[in-house]
């Protein structure tokens, strides 16, 4: 089906490339998240997209409808978190990834995936996709790995395609687990410009939805920002893990909240809805 020139798809027709390299370790959960909302995800190694390996294993990025950079670690996170994955992806697939983003296909980067999107220059991309990073996800203020449930307020005014099913201003719980999650930029007007463009998607808050600093903000990120999208709204990067919050029973307060499902599912469901309303 065509609608305003955009192809409308059934959920099962949405092919999602869950991209990994050596050391990626959240691809199973990410695959499960997309499968849970009816998509057809596939775990793909970067080498499969660059003509390496057996012919039957080779894939082409343009055959997919959505792209996910899972969390965990990549290539030991040597040099900087996500830097090696980003450098390899850019040298082998730079043009294909850029075309994918420009075509406004959905791209999500979770945790290490967010670090990769920033290193690739795909986020924040306030002035367009950049060759060098224009932001950094730097060592947490605490100087250590911070791992616990975090509360996030949906700040998107409607541009981000991954949060349309989460009401604006609603607070959700996704776990965080990272040592380098402090969003920084050299631009003094960084946060203002993100706000102006509706690029701030999630902020860390206390359980009652207020800005409350550490420990609710685990890393000291500018203006408590946990996730941002590109100006077009089709690329989302966030430090917390929605794919670890799929089931009601994995929430620490499941006996008190009586929810049917985890808060994270809404992120993946929103993406499906954007492609198959």
């Amino acid at each position, binding site marked *: 089906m065509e609608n305003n020139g955009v192809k409308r798809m059934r959920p099962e027709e949405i092919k999602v490339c869950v991209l990994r390299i050596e050391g990626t370790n959240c691809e199973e959960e990410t695959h499960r998240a997309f499968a849970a909302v009816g998509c057809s995800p596939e775990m793909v190694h970067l080498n499969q997209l660059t003509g390496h390996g057996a012919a039957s294993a080779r894939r082409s990025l343009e055959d997919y409808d959505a792209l996910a950079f899972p969390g965990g670690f990549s290539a030991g996170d040597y*040099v*900087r978190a996500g*830097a*090696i994955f980003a*450098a390899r992806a850019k*040298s082998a697939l730079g043009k294909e990834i850029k075309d994918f983003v420009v075509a406004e296909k959905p791209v999500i980067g979770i945790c290490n995936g967010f670090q990769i999107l920033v*290193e690739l220059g795909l986020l924040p991309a306030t002035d367009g996709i950049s060759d*060098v*990073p*224009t*932001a*950094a996800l*730097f*060592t*947490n*203020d*605490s*100087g*250590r790995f911070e791992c616990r449930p975090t509360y996030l307020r949906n700040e998107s005014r409607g541009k981000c395609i991954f949060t349309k099913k989460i009401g604006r201003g609603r607070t959700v719980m996704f776990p965080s687990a990272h040592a380098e999650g402090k969003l*920084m*930029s*050299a631009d003094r007007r960084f946060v203002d410009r993100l706000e102006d463009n509706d690029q701030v998607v999630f902020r860390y808050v206390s359980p009652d939805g207020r800005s409350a600093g550490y420990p609710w903000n685990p890393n000291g990120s500018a203006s408590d920002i946990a996730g941002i999208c590109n100006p077009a709204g089709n690329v989302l990067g966030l430090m917390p893990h929605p794919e670890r919050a799929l089931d009601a029973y994995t929430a620490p307060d499941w006996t008190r909240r009586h929810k049917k499902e985890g808060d994270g599912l809404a992120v993946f469901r929103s993406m499906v809805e954007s492609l198959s309303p």
Partner: protein
Amino acid sequence: MAVAEIRIELKKGVADPEGQNTKKALELLGFEGISSVRSMKFFQVELDLEGDEAVQACEEMCRKLLANPVIQSYSVQLK
């Protein structure tokens, strides 16, 4: 053949939690009078180039992978 030493450090004004925590640990061990500890990365690269060409190649490595210009600066020295 050149041996290049590449130093990646945090730009002035960027907080350095690793350096600060290391300073704290050293003080807990009883070292006194430490006014600051800064963390930085150091790579030694051997390459089949000489002089300016080797330096330029290393600077390209910094731009493409080793440094994030938002938070880090780099310097290259041939040994």
